[in-house]
């Protein structure tokens, strides 16, 4: 994407930066909310696996939303 005509000069994210950031945000979201879901599962006494699954879905959704806000637009 080096000679893409409509890229902004200084604020544009490089392709390496974007790939790393997408992976990092996704992993961070899934880890944080998966972990919180796992904790909540222990406290609330939900059957095992429900909390972590819901947490991971939520985290992935939040991460994708964040990626679109930060990098997509």
């Amino acid at each position, binding site marked *: *994407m080096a000679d*893409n*005509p*409509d*890229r902004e000069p200084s604020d544009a994210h490089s392709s390496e930066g*974007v*790939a790393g950031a*997408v*992976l990092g*945000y*996704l*992993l961070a979201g*899934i*880890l944080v909310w*998966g972990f919180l879901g*796992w904790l909540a599962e222990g406290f609330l006494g939900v059957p095992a*696996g429900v909390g*972590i699954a819901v947490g*991971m879905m939520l985290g*992935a959704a939040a*991460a*994708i939303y964040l*990626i*679109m806000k930060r*990098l*997509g*637009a």
Partner: protein
Amino acid sequence: MDVLAALEGNLNTVGYGLAAIGPGIGVALVFAAYIQASARQPESAGFNRTWLVLGFALVEALALFGLVLAFALS
């Protein structure tokens, strides 16, 4: 019952290996489509990039589910 094959170690690694097949193909398709689109129509590259990032993120999330679950489930 005769044992035909046995596996030592953690089965989660095999599970993650299987879970990575689909997203691997998916990521390849996403990038192939992006490269093809911007080769045919270079001026659309900036516009398509948003959808590239979204598609990559959606597909890669599945692989990361597998990665996290491989560590989390015991």
